């Protein structure tokens, strides 16, 4: 698949993003069509995330949007990795939407940000995924190569 297909779509998305973004989502950088960063924050006052802003990194392959982008949280001094039972402390996100099976080409950067935003808003558990420590220490795989089991539909 040619790069141009992805680029064309990303150019359109960028145009739309530059015009307007939903509240709580901000574009930080989009220098090229390989990698973008955005900031998201939770809009209500969920005590878990009050006053926090989180940095998201999107990596686009040549097959975007047919295949999902790689989306992770980035840890910076003023941008913590949100605590959530589906977010590992190294920023890797376990969300079916971002996997081969759950992804649909109709999704886009904005919709992914909104999904993550609402995933945080709805969360009440102050915890990491089970086995976080072991996973973070042992994982050498790219997020797309990890076989997540999407078994938990409650959060």
């Amino acid at each position: 698949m040619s790069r141009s297909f992805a680029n064309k779509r990303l150019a359109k998305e960028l145009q739309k993003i530059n015009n307007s973004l939903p509240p709580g989502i901000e574009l930080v950088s989009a220098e090229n069509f390989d990698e973008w960063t955005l900031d998201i924050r939770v809009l209500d006052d969920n005590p878990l995330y009050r006053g926090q802003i989180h940095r998201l990194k999107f990596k686009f392959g040549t097959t975007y949007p047919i295949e999902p982008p790689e989306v992770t949280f980035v840890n910076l001094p003023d941008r913590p990795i949100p605590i959530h039972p589906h977010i590992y402390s190294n920023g890797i996100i376990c969300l079916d939407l971002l996997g081969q099976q759950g992804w649909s080409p109709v999704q886009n950067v904005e919709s992914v940000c909104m999904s993550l935003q609402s995933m945080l808003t709805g969360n009440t558990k102050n915890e990491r995924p089970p086995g976080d420590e072991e996973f973070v220490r042992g994982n050498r795989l790219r997020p797309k190569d990890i076989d997540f089991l999407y078994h938990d539909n409650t959060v």
Partner: protein
Amino acid sequence: MDSDEDFMSAVSSEDDILPDDSENEDMSGGEDFDDFDEPDPDLGISKDFGQRKRVAYDIPFQVYKPADIQKQQDELVNEVNMILDIPKGEAAILLRHFRWNKERLIEDYMDRPRQVLEASGLALEPASLPKLEVLPGFMCDICCEDGDGLESFAIKCGHRYCVDCYRHYLAQKIKEEGEAARIQCPSGGCNLIIDARSLDLLVTPELTARYHELLNRTYVEDKDTLKWCPAPDCPNAIECGVKKKDLDKVVPTVSCLCEHRFCFGCILNDHQPAPCELVKRWLKKCADDSETANWISANTKECPRCGSTIEKNGGCNHMTCRKCKHEFCWMCMGLWSEHGTSWYNCNRFEEKSGLDARDAQAKSRVSLDRYLHYYNRYANHEQSARLDKNLSQKTEKKMVQLQKESGMSWIEVQYLNAASQALQTCRTTLMWTYAFAFYLARNNLTEIFEDNQKDLEMAVENLSAMFERPVTELADSKLKVELMDKTSYCNKRRIILLEDTAQNLADGRWTFNVELTGSAASSGPSNRA
């Protein structure tokens, strides 16, 4: 449509060149073959068991070459074509839609033909045939294009995308993900499957071949009783009636025409006599870190005060923890000050302070020793089998050399090949007996098992030692006879061992120290091996 007709004509031409194998004919003969869910064929299998009662580890199975598979599909299609009076191309689509369950298809079709046709995408009215459309004001949600004259397409759910995106999407599914018969609508959360006619319209010419290949595969993949041979480049499929729920009772090893031996239950290489569940656990245990923790607890001690891990690599028993400066005795783990005058010679045994620490350590040491005992033997046979395999490649050369030097004919040197085959098969079996034994709880039967294991091991080692002798010696007719004897003895010991374990497994007489069925589903991410 024409693509389906292509598929049909390709089938019939292959049909003609298929050699008339009466045994195959028997097995693939329509009714008694295609639905193993019905009670009738099950009887067939138990009858088969009855005939072969002498060998409990031997599972009846049948290998099908691509032409056989094609022929079976063809027969099903023909049958549906005749019974329901619908064109063959459409019959094929319907059968795939019903996952090759002919009975259900016919029943459903008789009851409500219209719904069945609609559900499988074979709409009757020409107006609802899939077609590309140019709609005014349309914008594609995938590429965000909205130009005039943009061709678009949608299946019944109405999620409409431009043709270009649709084709990109299908290319990804067909080329990269190997899907064909059950590709879903590109829209998120829409599970509607894109029907065959729509795919015929949309699949681009460079994908057609791959698309039809994948379609043909659904026949094997949809049937629980059929599985592809996992050997690289092997196009055959194997039919076996062993069901998933029986895997705690039987180890269904099958062997393909390509000589690859594998387990029908889990597709891994032959692992008799160990049942699939034990194999899964064993491989996981060997791969993960669980025994590292055991090593640590067996070879190190923890400071009784601060818990720091300490490995003693020399020196006397008077330990001073580097971290907390706690002084204790390495032998009894008790306070050093309690030792009084018995300097450097701990002879106190029943003092309370050291008892608990020693208990815990003894436990992990026993557990580690036990694991290592079985693992070392398992790994040793695995390695030997690999070395024997190298040897078998050399055997080829040996055989040629032998023919030249001794003037023996090709058939006369086959005993070398037989010996090498026996070595490998027996080593594989031995290897898995150790994984099996690791999970075995002791009872009266384990002794018989261990005797059998020992006998096979001795037979194998004997043969292996003899096999390594130089070719010139092996040409001697006396040694030749001896080697042949040893080979057949090895094979016989292996059969005795497998026979015994399989029979006891089928009768549920083994007790394992783990649960054989319904292992708890692990949560969290499982990294692909």
